[in-house]
């Protein structure tokens, strides 16, 4: 008996909730450093704050040992510019990423990643994560360094991305936190930040939380707080009907609490308008269908008749051999890795299958379906792609490697079919995403504005990982978490004792438990989520204008006051999911406010205003940080290179040396 349907079709009563119900019961916890979000960034932040002697508390909505975007594993580590084999400097790497993003990226975050991601990976190795080919299984491969036994991905010449055996990354981080005495509160969602005097814009002195199994309430008081939570994954599109929550790169828990609670506390945010698009529930198994990119980078693609699709360099020159797919083009300094978060500029462009594949399919040159044919690669390359990367990456070790091999798939003999899609869909490199619908938006890389201490605009509040604007990928989350943990601990050493404002706590309790008091006939969280998504699709979709954005704001406000206010939660789990919807409403409002503030379209931000069609006019080429002040939205202008202008030093290296705390 596995399913609920089986369970209820028997002669026995419906079981009661399996966990004790303790709605509203208060737990008061004090810490030096409070980490909100126990994903990759949060764990590294906790470990590094604890190593500096701080009493550390971690609050996590799922289960820290395995939750978060990196919870299921990781297969490659980006920006390890300081590894002994790298031919790229931190400065070169940072400039390449920032420039690829058209400047709309976070300089301190990228530089910290380039300076510290190798050291962070060595930390992980100390904790028990394998990062080298110690058993010499792939000896002699062109991506392997014989001395260090490190193995590289994507660019075998410049060697700044390392292939790792990260399937046990989270359990290793978890054990290290336990060893260091970090207190972990799992199944607790952070619902608000506590501020000095209960006022918006003052020092952050902790947070409140609700347990999604028991309904207990938590008051966390801390000298320093770090937000290390994910971006929202279901703001524009939500339906579990097709494939549950399988198709998203982020899990159901990711609703942007870090954004919403920071916003309500008065912290400042940037690039909230940036967005991509998605195929929603029509996506394929993540990294689990034939394609030539990302984890499967360099794999041969053949058509239904066995005809191979040629690979070309950035200039469209055909690459005659397989090893050339992993080498920079003539005159190219280095290739950027996959997963950075920005498609590379020309200088660091990837090698890819022919750029005009859709046209060639239309003309009949290649017959669908296409297949990923690993047998055409060397045995070591094939093993590195399927045995190492697919075998260790999150969402592929069990879902793809284990599941497919048990079903008989053998990369030495078999070709994995690519999804069969309209020809134009093959223009995108990431075929498992399917055919994206432009107004089904996917939250981009908006987030908290930080300084060189990874401190937000609020005293006592630090940030790491996906909560920082511009952040992308596992290594970036890890290294920024590591840095933020140090800085938060250093601040906590000198900070005054936190005093919670009782009125602020009581107001939050009233808000948090309201969904339990509604009529059982009220709508549930799933329908509410779908309503929020509809508003975002229609009024803040691919094309925006002042009129429709304002309607969207009005509808979100009305939804909050009517349907959301009547939403009913039957148990602590549903309570948490309902509160997440309130979070989504807030994040939706943030996106709309940001969209109203930017009166210019931008290709770099994938942002289209019908009423301001001019694309990327120079006067709008800047950040527009926004925050709440006395509950009113305030927007200011900030140069894209603010991190290299006064009060900061003019170079990355000087700023890093002044602030890194090492």
């Amino acid at each position: 008996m596995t399913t609920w349907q089986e369970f209820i079709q028997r002669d026995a009563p419906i079981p009661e909730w399996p966990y004790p119900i303790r709605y509203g019961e208060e737990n008061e916890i004090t810490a030096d450093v409070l980490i909100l979000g126990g994903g990759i960034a949060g764990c590294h932040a906790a470990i590094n704050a604890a190593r500096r002697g701080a009493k550390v508390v971690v609050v996590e909505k799922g289960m820290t040992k395995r939750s978060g975007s990196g919870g299921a594993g990781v297969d490659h580590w980006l920006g390890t510019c300081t590894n002994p084999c790298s031919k790229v400097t931190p400065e070169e790497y940072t400039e390449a990423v920032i420039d690829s993003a058209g400047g709309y990226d976070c300089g301190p975050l990228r530089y910290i990643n380039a300076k510290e991601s190798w050291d962070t990976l060595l930390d992980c190795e100390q904790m028990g994560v394998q990062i080298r080919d110690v058993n010499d299984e792939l000896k002699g491969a062109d991506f392997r360094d014989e001395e260090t036994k490190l193995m590289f991905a994507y660019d075998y010449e410049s060697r700044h991305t390392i292939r790792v055996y990260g399937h046990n990354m989270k359990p290793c981080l978890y054990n290290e936190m336990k060893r260091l005495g970090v207190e972990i509160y799992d199944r607790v969602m952070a619902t608000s930040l506590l501020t000095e005097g209960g006022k918006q814009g003052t020092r952050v002195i902790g947070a409140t939380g609700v347990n999604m199994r028991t309904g207990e309430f938590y008051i966390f008081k801390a000298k320093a707080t770090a937000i290390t939570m994910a971006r929202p994954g279901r703001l524009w599109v939500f339906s579990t009907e097709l494939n549950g929550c399988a198709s998203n790169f982020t899990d159901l828990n990711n609703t942007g609490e870090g954004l919403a609670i920071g916003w309500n506390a008065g912290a400042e945010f940037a690039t909230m308008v940036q967005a991509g698009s998605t195929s929603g529930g029509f996506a394929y198994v993540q990294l689990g269908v034939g394609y030539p990119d990302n984890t499967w980078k360099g794999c041969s693609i053949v058509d239904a008749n066995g005809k191979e699709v040629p690979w070309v360099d950035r200039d469209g020159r055909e690459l005659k051999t397989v090893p050339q797919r992993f080498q920079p083009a003539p005159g190219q300094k280095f290739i950027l890795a996959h997963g950075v978060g920005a498609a590379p500029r020309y200088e660091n462009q990837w090698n890819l299958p022919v750029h005009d594949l859709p046209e060639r399919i239309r003309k009949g040159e290649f017959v669908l379906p296409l297949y990923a044919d690993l047998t055409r690669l060397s045995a070591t390359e094939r093993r590195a792609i399927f045995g190492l990367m697919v075998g260790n990456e999150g969402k592929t070790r069990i879902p793809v490697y284990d599941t497919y091999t048990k079903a008989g798939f053998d990369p030495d003999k078999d070709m994995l079919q690519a999804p069969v899609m309209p020809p134009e869909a093959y223009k995108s490199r990431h075929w498992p995403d399917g055919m994206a619908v432009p107004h089904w938006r996917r939250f981009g890389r908006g987030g908290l504005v930080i300084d060189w201490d990874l401190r937000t605009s609020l005293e006592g509040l630090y940030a790491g990982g996906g909560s920082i604007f511009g952040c992308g990928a596992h290594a970036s989350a890890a290294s920024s978490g590591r840095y933020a943990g140090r800085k938060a601990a250093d601040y906590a050493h000198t900070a005054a004792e936190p005093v919670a404002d009782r009125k602020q706590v009581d107001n939050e309790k009233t808000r948090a438990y309201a969904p339990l008091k509604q009529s059982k006939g009220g709508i549930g969280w799933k329908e509410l989520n779908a309503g929020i998504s509809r508003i975002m699709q229609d009024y803040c979709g691919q094309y925006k204008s002042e009129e429709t954005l304002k309607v969207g704001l009005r509808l979100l406000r009305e939804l909050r006051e009517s349907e959301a206010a009547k939403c009913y939660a039957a148990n602590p789990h549903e309570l948490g999911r309902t509160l997440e919807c309130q979070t989504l409403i807030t994040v939706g409002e943030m996106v709309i406010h940001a969209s109203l503030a930017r009166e210019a379209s931008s290709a770099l931000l994938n942002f289209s205003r019908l009423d301001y069609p001019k694309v990327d006019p120079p006067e709008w080429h800047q950040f527009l940080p926004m925050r709440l002040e006395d509950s009113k939205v305030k927007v200011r202008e900030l140069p894209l290179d603010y991190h290299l202008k006064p009060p900061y030093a003019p170079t990355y290296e000087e700023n890093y040396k002044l602030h890194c705390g090492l």
Partner: protein
Amino acid sequence: MSDKVYMVPNPPTPNKAVEFDPEICNGCNLCVDICRSDVMMPNPEKKKPPIVLYPDECWFCGCCVEECNRPGAIKMLHPLNQSIVVSWKRKGTGEYFRLGMKNPPPPNTRPPVR
């Protein structure tokens, strides 16, 4: 199972997400506690496999399978709208296979790189 016919809502989709082998599973609930989304609930009957209460919330990350220390007790099942198009062609023979097929080929027992 009773022969009675009950008035029940349609099963949530995807219907299963994970499946237990009651012969192997000892109801330790390790998978219940590792799941990020609380997809499974402990069975009121001790030592019995958990109940999949929220399959619609599954991310299909496989952490429950990874953490289980009784091989074969729990299996992750991709949603049908994805698994039905996971297929492969054997180069040497031209045979077609797919996830979930009636007569699957023998398993490939090679583990990931260590």
